[in-house]
């Protein structure tokens, strides 16, 4: 169980660039549930994910992973719970290092690192088997520098690395947004397969309505740093792309009459 209570975060406070990215977000994610977070640009969806990962600390609020409070834990300490795939396919792998070495790093996620050989021979067989499951022909290129691979290949490898040790929470940050359609499709299918097989608790941020409808068992819609709508179970299964578009359109219409404008009208006419 992942619990986020009344999370608040303001970037650049007290300046003209002040952004209230999270305005008291509370969220409980049950074990094994696959939550899709949807929102417009600047809605706080990536901030929500980064808050859970520990990329920054919250201004207020509390985060618990499986009953352990991690609110003040830095990112590298939370890594023992969290597997992560970034939007930028180049962010999740060390480009100058080989595929095998990248996996050797992922195999120690959240564990202490000592003076043992990073890549013992016995691991190579298992590694080749798992990489073969991607069907990208990379199992014969384990000693190739990962920076020479395509974005889609790197993103698929990052996903495999993030889930090599079963994470308590898998965070996917628009991880197909920077890929060409064919690679994006391939990575999405791989994502679905791994999450289903390992029954992973997952939070996936996307701005693709189609992905939000097709994937996961719960949709959280965010707007202006707050949760706008939260649908799970049968409600989630009934949702279609048009419904989601309608909800965002509602908000947009309501915003044209924001509180200050309403006050102005009231003062003039009432």
């Amino acid at each position, binding site marked *: 169980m992942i619990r986020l209570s009344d999370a608040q975060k303001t970037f650049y406070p007290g300046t003209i660039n002040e952004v209230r990215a999270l305005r008291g977000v509370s969220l409980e994610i049950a074990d094994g549930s696959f939550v899709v977070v949807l929102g417009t640009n600047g809605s706080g969806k990536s901030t929500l994910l980064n808050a859970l990962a520990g990329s920054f600390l919250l201004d207020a609020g509390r985060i618990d992973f499986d009953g352990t409070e991690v609110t003040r834990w830095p*990112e590298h300490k939370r890594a023992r719970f969290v597997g992560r795939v970034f939007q930028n396919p180049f962010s999740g792998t*060390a480009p*100058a*290092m080989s595929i095998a070495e990248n996996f050797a790093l*992922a195999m120690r996620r959240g564990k202490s690192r000592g*003076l043992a050989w990073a890549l013992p021979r016995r691991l190579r067989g298992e590694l080749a088997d798992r990489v073969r499951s991607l069907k990208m022909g990379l199992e014969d290129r384990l000693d190739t520098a990962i920076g020479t691979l395509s974005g889609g290949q790197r993103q698929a490898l990052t996903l495999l690395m993030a889930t090599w040790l079963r994470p308590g929470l898998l965070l996917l940050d628009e991880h197909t947004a920077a890929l060409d359609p064919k690679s994006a499709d391939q990575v999405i299918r791989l994502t679905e397969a791994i999450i289903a097989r390992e029954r992973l608790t997952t939070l996936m941020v996307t701005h693709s309505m189609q992905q939000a409808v097709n994937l996961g068992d719960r949709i959280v819609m965010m707007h202006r740093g707050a949760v706008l709508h939260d649908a799970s179970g049968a409600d989630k299964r009934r949702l279609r792309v048009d419904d989601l578009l309608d909800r965002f359109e509602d908000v947009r219409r309501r915003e044209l009459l924001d509180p200050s404008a309403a006050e102005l009208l009231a003062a003039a006419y009432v």
Partner: protein
Amino acid sequence: MTLLIGALTLGLIMALLALGVYVSYRIFATADITVDGSLTFGAAVAAVLIVVHGVNPAVATAAGFLAGALAGCASGLLQTRFGINSLLAGILVMTALYSVNLRIMGRSNVPFLGATTLSTWCGHLGDRLFGGGEVNLAGWAVNAQDLVQLGVMAAIVGAAAAALYWFFRTELGTAMRASGDNPQMISALGANVGRYRIIGLALSNGLVGMSGALWAQYQNFADAQMGIGMIVWGLASVIIGEALTGAPSLGYAIIGAVFGSVLFRLLVAIALGFGLNPNDLKLITALFVFLALILPGALAHLPRRRRAVEAA
């Protein structure tokens, strides 16, 4: 022949400096000027331990390593804990070390005179192995002590290079390389990037400090000025090494740094032999590194520009 052996020995001593600079420059992508201070720091500590306190030269050399490592830690802390730009952090530590070194030595130059150093040991070993005096090496008469010294330095540098290669293939060392390559990724995999940077810079400057300790014993004095510009020497060695091996992997890069240093020292010895003014040496070294830095970019631009002209 004596000149050649001298150049090779000095090249090997400087190879430790080159290995240290390889760690900061290629693994962490910073030009770490701390090196200029930590080289002298290592030399000063070793010299005072040997001359004033009569410490065993092997222990004094190890102390030179520790002194350098301490300087590296200081630089690393300034960078990570206080968020100071890496270049500025290096300048601060280097400047501070200048005073520290003068304090340690008590004056600007400490000669070893008759104190027992590694060179003295090499002389004894030369006496025992070759009966002292001259050795006939393929027709050349070579001083036995010089020959043994060359062998000992080769052994020390070989061991250091092997240890460095082994370290960077361990779990810790692999994570350290990744923290220079992609800090965001390795942080998400549970590594404390700041701590790795501190350990890495300590290792780097430790090698440099050891290089200083060995150099002082080889030339028979430690001097407050001996570290000046040595970062550029290290960079030149690393760059030559990469040109030699192409540096396709970690092992080649490490071997390259060692051979780059030896080759660079040989070139310098030849140039000096042909009458190059030693005072011009640092200028030429800096120009060399400048050219090495801009040439790859300039070469890459050439065909593109030509293509643009053709298209127009």
